[in-house]
């Protein structure tokens, strides 16, 4: 019987960065016509491995074979010529250009004697690709007007349009709705039928069991093993990823609920937030569910003072407040953790310590307006420990941390200002199973301390697992409210797709 040869083989790949051994002797085999899941906790090395494959990084050691032949991938165009395409976790579209311009970036089509840009062809082809994914939008829409989820769809189309043999998708569904994810899976099946190998990096084990054929597990930069999806269970996978079996994925604690800390009445912001009213109490986690574009982030940013409300009232601790800027909101005890940490959460070229202490500097100020750096460092170290932020030192540049650890650092930053109300937008996006649980534990701790937490999330199991109460938004309006007991994925979805009259 003929044994199928792998389309791609990565053998004994090693890679180090200053102070960090990112990969040690990692192996990977991907077959044409199949989807290989690449799983592991954050910092396991998945993104690094794929960046080597796609030419962004150069490997220190090891071999890469395509169709049995050793290849040298020394740059991104090398990788593209070899038929390797990657859709990064961090979106890389050009915001000032249109959708079709982004899709055809570097591959523009020309027509006629004067080599004029064939916009008609590019627009038509783009419309074709867009409808393949079921994404109804004009190809001449400017990308910066799209939201995160829509941009990710364009990224996927970009890769598909380059006729690649190997397509790497790094957390492709993080910002996608269930409907869009289903469409993506249909497209993936189509790609498989054309013999393309898909490498699917994701934390969403449910998806992996749906769409992938085999799985490779990394942990701490090392190759742990691989398996056929049909022959392995979710618990087995988690055990391989974390090195231990997770008995409780969503720790929930029932705490005594106190006074109403934040109340929002008839809040309106342009046409994005329409007459939204809700409240949250001490010791409570209020989950806000909804599809993308439902206005949850806009509502949060309006409360936080980043957007100016068109009308409505906000009450903190029973008192009506006037919030005109994030600075005001923070002074009233409201903290907001953005869904887009690269753009709005961290300052990339500052250290972990400087990022963590940035909201709290007034506390460390002594005479002569001087920052007491010793006190600052003590505080930062305390919280690095409390949240298990994996960093060689507080002086490390935050851009060198993995996504999950960056997120933990930002959460620490907000906890350090002792807010009354913490609004956290997609708390565990792009974060591994182990770190997710740590973050839920932190939220529970805060709950116990009497804080009020508003958690915006598109991760159904997460919302169901951790919230005390859930409200659902749909197209800018509040469409439903469910207690923890009543809530199920079905009735959340029912509210999420409904349009109120």
């Amino acid at each position, binding site marked *: 019987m003929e044994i199928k040869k792998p389309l791609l083989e990565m053998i004994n790949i090693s890679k180090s960065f200053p102070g960090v051994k990112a990969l040690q002797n990692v192996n990977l085999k991907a077959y044409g016509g199949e989807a290989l899941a690449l799983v592991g906790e954050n910092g396991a090395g998945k993104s690094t491995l794929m960046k080597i494959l796609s030419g962004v990084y150069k490997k220190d050691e090891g071999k890469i074979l395509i169709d049995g032949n050793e290849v040298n991938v020394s740059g991104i165009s090398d990788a593209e010529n070899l038929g390797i395409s990657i859709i990064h976790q961090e979106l890389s579209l050009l915001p000032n250009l249109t959708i079709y311009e982004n899709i055809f970036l570097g591959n523009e089509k020309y027509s006629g004697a004067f080599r004029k840009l064939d916009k008609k062809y590019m627009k038509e082809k783009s419309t074709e690709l867009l409808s393949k994914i079921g994404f109804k939008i004009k190809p001449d829409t400017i990308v910066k007007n799209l939201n995160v989820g829509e941009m990710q769809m364009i990224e996927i189309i970009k890769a598909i349009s380059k006729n690649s043999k190997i397509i790497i998708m790094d957390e492709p569904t993080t910002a996608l709705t269930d409907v869009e994810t289903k469409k993506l899976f249909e497209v993936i099946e189509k790609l498989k039928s054309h013999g393309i190998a898909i490498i699917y990096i994701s934390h969403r084990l449910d998806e992996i069991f749906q769409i992938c054929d085999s799985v490779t597990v990394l942990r701490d930069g090392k190759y742990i093993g691989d398996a056929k999806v049909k022959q392995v269970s979710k618990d087995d996978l988690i055990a391989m990823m974390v090195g231990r079996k997770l008995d409780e994925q969503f720790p929930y604690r029932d705490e005594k609920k106190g006074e109403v800390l934040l109340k929002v009445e008839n809040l309106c912001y342009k046409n994005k937030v329409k007459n939204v009213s809700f409240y949250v109490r001490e010791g409570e986690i209020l989950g806000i569910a909804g599809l993308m574009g439902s206005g949850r982030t806009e509502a949060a940013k309006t409360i936080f003072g980043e957007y100016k409300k068109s009308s409505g009232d906000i009450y903190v601790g029973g008192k009506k407040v006037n919030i005109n800027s994030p600075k005001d909101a923070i002074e009233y005890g409201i903290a907001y953790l953005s869904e887009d940490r690269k753009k709005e959460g961290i300052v990339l*070229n500052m250290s972990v310590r400087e990022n963590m202490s940035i909201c709290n500097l007034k506390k460390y100020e002594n005479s002569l307006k001087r920052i007491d750096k010793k006190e600052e460092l003590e505080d930062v170290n305390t919280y690095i420990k409390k949240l298990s932020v994996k960093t060689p030192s507080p002086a490390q540049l935050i851009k060198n941390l993995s996504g999950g650890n960056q997120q933990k650092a930002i959460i620490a930053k907000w906890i350090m200002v002792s807010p009354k109300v913490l609004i956290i937008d997609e708390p565990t996006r792009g974060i591994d199973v182990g770190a997710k649980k740590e973050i839920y534990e932190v939220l529970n701790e805060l709950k116990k301390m009497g804080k009020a937490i508003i958690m915006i999330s598109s991760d159904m199991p997460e919302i169901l697992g951790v919230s005390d109460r859930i409200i659902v938004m749909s197209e800018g309006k509040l469409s439903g409210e469910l207690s923890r007991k009543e809530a199920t994925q079905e009735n959340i979805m029912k509210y999420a797709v409904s349009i109120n009259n």
Partner: protein
Amino acid sequence: MSKDIKSNLLKYKSLLGLVLLCIVISIITPRFLNVINIMNVLTQVSVNAILAIGMSFVILTGGIDLSVGSTLAISGAVAATLIKSNGSMVMALVVALAIGALIGLLNGIIISKGKIQAFIATLATMTIFRGATLVYTNGTPVSALPENFMLIGNKKLAGIIPMPAVITLVVLLIAWYVLNETRYGRYVYALGGNEDSARLSGINTDKIKIIVYVICGIMAALSGVIVTSRVGSASPNAGTGFELDAIAAVVLGGTSLAGGEGTVVGTIIGAMIIGVLNNGLNLMNVSPYYQLIVKGFVILLAILLDKKNK
């Protein structure tokens, strides 16, 4: 070359560049390395250094200030007129610095509240205040300044150390302190690094922007007083083109024009590089026209080395 050594070398590239430059020049001409010449260099560098320190604050936030030359001119002119009519050093100084601060305030407000790009806003104010200087002085220099005023630019402490260099040192120490030891300094770096994150962290980004332009304006005014004192008169054309040397010093010192990265010590080194280069070429009897070409190449080289490091 091991990776660690290489990255450390690149980190100190400005300082190394300066040292290398000094060595090369001293080999070519023995007249470079003597006390009197060095003191001359320090004096000549001072004005640009002070301007560049002010410019550092602005560039660190991702902005730029093209109006410093004009601010220099009008502050110098007003100081000169006041000292002639009134004789009070303190008043002349205070009013001059106040003018610098007000021009900076204007720049800051236009850029932060008016949301106009720094390049364009300060291009406009540069033109307005150059015109204002010409109007104020009627197009003629203000000369015959009293003794006490001339001391600022010309006095030598202990007979050797030029006053402008001392002033530069004091300014450097204060600037270093603000940027490294106070929270305003952190806010400046945060704002330059990522304005959205900074604002969402509760930093009053408008206020910080206004403050850095005010600082830059004050530094320009201080430079105006020194220039006027050294030359002995306030020319309506003083400071023309000084903004470019200031920006060059900031860039040579390793500060990124995008904001968020750089130090004032680096800026001083950058200013020194320009000053030493000019001095060296003078001592070698190179025509000042060639000096401009050399300076331009040095700046280009510095930026290329910076890109390579990234």
